[in-house]
């Protein structure tokens, strides 16, 4: 149930992206906002991710967004009164072939050009950052110490309570089932418990964003791709950085609770239809990859496995801003496997767009219209694993 029948802005999805967007609107003085979610708080990818936060990217614009977000998460505890335990233990990328290492070198150059001290590592330097690894077959790696990991849940609670304190409504258990559209503009949102009028709508539905756009008659190229993840029994701290192997997308870190949490890329049928199951295939593949790189984990138990959706785009970059085909309909989606780490910065720009302000986003990189001009060569982000 929603409290009122009309809002200035309705945000679909109460994940980290929807909540941060509402927060930036509130910061700008706009609290006549409804955030509506069909599930429970943290039931989407925002409650299912690996908590990785990195600034090593191929596209300079993404490096800048990530750097801004790192600042936000460093301040989160003071700003919101919740500790996200953002531990800057670094991100360690591993390459197995000279070609992969060359690609990582190029990334380091881009990151350095943005003023961040990422470094290329030899295998023995890799060992210094993560002594438990078996570096046989590792050609080298890269490292940036100000990258890190956080505990995602408190970020959701902190934003939720801060919004409530500002009078912003966050309603869960209420699916959006359609939109009211008049004269090429979105005018309202149809939910399972009634229709509310809105001047602007933000699609922050993560893996379900393509489904939600369709409710407004819009086709987008987003693909919901299921990614599985597991956590082991907790151990005393032994691993500081997040480790990512580019060849198979294996990533893992040791959380504040001592568990090794991680996953790898495994093709699954796409789309949100089949739900979020775990698979035996993943458990086997992940166990082989993990014990190959960190043999001492062989006798450590897997405690639980789960999965969630990456909301992927063809060019690996998020979709941010107003849809040129439908006035008042804004996208804050397509964040792939990296929405948690980018949300503070991307959501600020979406909020600016909703408020009619100029943003520093290059529409050719992030604009929803970019996919409507086929054949145009664009920059893409390919370092999307891990």
């Amino acid at each position, binding site marked *: 149930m929603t409290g009122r029948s009309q809002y200035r802005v309705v945000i679909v999805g109460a994940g980290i992206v929807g909540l941060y967007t509402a927060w930036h609107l509130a910061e700008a003085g706009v609290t006549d906002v409804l955030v509506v979610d069909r599930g429970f708080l943290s039931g989407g990818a925002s409650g299912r991710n690996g908590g990785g936060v990195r600034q090593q990217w191929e596209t300079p614009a993404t490096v800048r967004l990530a750097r801004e977000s790192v600042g936000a998460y460093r301040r989160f*505890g003071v700003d919101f009164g919740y500790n996200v335990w953002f531990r800057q233990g670094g991100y360690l990328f591993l390459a197995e072939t000279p070609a992969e290492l060359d690609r990582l070198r190029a990334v380091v150059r881009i990151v350095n050009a943005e003023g961040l001290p990422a470094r290329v590592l030899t295998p023995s330097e890799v060992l210094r950052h993560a002594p438990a690894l078996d570096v046989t077959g590792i050609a080298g790696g890269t490292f940036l110490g100000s990258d890190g990991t956080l505990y995602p*849940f408190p970020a959701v*609670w902190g934003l939720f309570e801060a919004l409530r304190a500002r009078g912003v409504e966050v309603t869960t258990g209420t699916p959006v089932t359609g939109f009211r559209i008049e004269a090429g503009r979105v005018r309202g949102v149809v939910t399972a418990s009634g229709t509310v009028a809105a001047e602007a709508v933000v699609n922050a539905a993560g893996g379900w964003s393509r489904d939600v756009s369709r409710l407004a008659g819009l086709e987008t190229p987003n693909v919901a791709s299921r990614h599985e993840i597991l956590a082991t029994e907790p151990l005393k701290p032994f691993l500081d950085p997040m480790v990512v192997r580019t060849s198979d997308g294996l990533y893992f870190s040791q959380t504040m609770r001592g568990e090794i949490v991680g996953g790898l890329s495994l093709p*699954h049928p796409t789309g949100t239809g089949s739900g979020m199951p775990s698979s*035996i295939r993943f458990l*086997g593949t992940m166990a082989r990859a993990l014990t*190959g790189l960190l043999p001492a984990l062989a006798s450590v138990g*897997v*405690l639980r496995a*789960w999965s969630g959706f990456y909301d992927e785009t063809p060019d690996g970059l998020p979709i941010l801003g107003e849809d040129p085909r439908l006035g008042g309909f804004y996208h804050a989606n397509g964040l792939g496997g990296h929405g948690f780490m980018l949300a503070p910065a991307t959501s600020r720009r979406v909020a600016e767009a909703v408020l009619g302000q100029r943003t520093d986003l290059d529409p050719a990189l992030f604009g929803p219209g970019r996919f409507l001009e086929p054949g145009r060569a664009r920059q893409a982000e390919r370092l999307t694993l891990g």
Partner: protein
Amino acid sequence: MAATGSSPPRWRGRPLAGPEGASLVARLARAGLPELQRSLRYHRPRAPFCGIGQCTNCLVGVNGRPNVRGCRYVPLAGDRITSANSWPSPSWDLLGVLDLLFPRGLDTLHGFTWPRFAAPLYHRVIRRLAGYDRLPEGGAATGPAGPPAPAVADPVETDVLVIGAGDAGTAAAAACAGRGLETLLVDRGPPAEAPGPARLARTTVVFLPPPEGEPSRFSALVHEEAGPARLVRARRVVVATGGYDGPLLFGNGDRPGVVTAEGALALGLADADPWFRRAVVFGGGPRVLPLLDRFGTHVEAVVAPGAVSPAVVERASALDVPIYPRTLLLEALGRRRVRGLRLAPRGGGPTFDLEADALLLAHRRLPQPQLFYQAGARMRWHATLGAYVPDLEAGGATSVPGLYAAGTAAGLLEPAASAASGEAVADAISGSGVARPAPPALPESTGELEGYYVELLRRPRGRAKRLLCPCEDVLLTEVEEAVANGYRGVEVVKRRTGVGTGLCQGRYCLPDLLLVLAHLEGRPPAEVGYITQRPPVLPTPLGALARLPTATGSEEEGA
């Protein structure tokens, strides 16, 4: 493989006494109440509780392998057994001071954010508190020795897979095999002594995704102790995983000396154990009887949350054991271990204390429902049990085609009903015989436990910590705070407080959480929500999973 030799196994550097061939916990219990480790956040002393390899209280390191459950592990010559998460020892632990320093809990949700420059320091300190044991040294850490992996073709193919060799599973397997169905029985326990259908012993089904393909078939992920994980393919699966003795919420409920009924029986606690002179049994139903039989004159009293069954009254009177029906258990007394219990009559009245060395929980038998959830079976709330059970048709069929339930796992508590339900399943599977009606379940007297918890939570409480989730040291007050702040439903409260995310996979806290939330949210437990049961059913070593065949042929997904 573990080192062998003639030297005795060593516990914390000293030769281990006690009967050879018994579990570590049973051996240590001969000398006194074994304290094996400290809890995660507050370093509270912990001693064996469940006795069946499910809780977190007896984790030890064996030859460098972390988190081995001492109640199921039988020490071998040459084994080096270490304790975790305590210094200098589990009995005298310096960090035990945390429990006193934070009488109202350590607030890792809001605290440690200020000043900002101290964050790295906070991270270092709090990280050290997490986790029990260390990463095994080197890649060649060995676990406790087990039988070598049998030479069974992988994946194992069978017509009927029966999971659990209790009364129900044994009956189901025998009846299926008797009808000419190819049958495989899998159980966590040792091999059967009597001949019977094909059997995998010391093996746990850790993941049962929904069936796939046409005709549909199950692929179960099984793990044999100290062996590899493997696949068992079956057209029909009978889940007869039985039940376990459930938890109870009270002040200092995690104190050493609090043991489940089956724990007390399985650990072989005996008259000779010096710390076990005066036991109080909590419960009023059939679970109490074997305890009275076994511990007889050492039972100080029977305390029941509700009415006491006539059979218990009769047996207790014969032994001269006093009975306290309709009584709230408020708090365990004793700073380091149980020395007594604080009780109060239900419905109001002054509190009173009983002296006791041990508390045996026999009030609540819960089904093991994980595999039903994983396979996607429809569940329903069973008010007497205070738990979810599969929604069954006659013959024990669940809502998932090919998946059947029998025995306690299906919500049946009477042993006789269990065996009968196993046979009924075999009838349904083989299509022979008349489909018998499902055996009668216990009458569902709504709200027995719900009422108890409502009264408990309404009473003013003392200062003793009430740990809702002992694995993660989550306090009842943290759950109350979450609800007061507008967080609703099991899934959200679980994510917010960490309840249910520990090594027992929520077995010893989620059942209580449901009842607590029902009260706090003012709605029936059935509306509070389902609990997603994630695979695996028990922690499964990565090394075992790594030995799964590379191409399993299909998605094998579920849960």
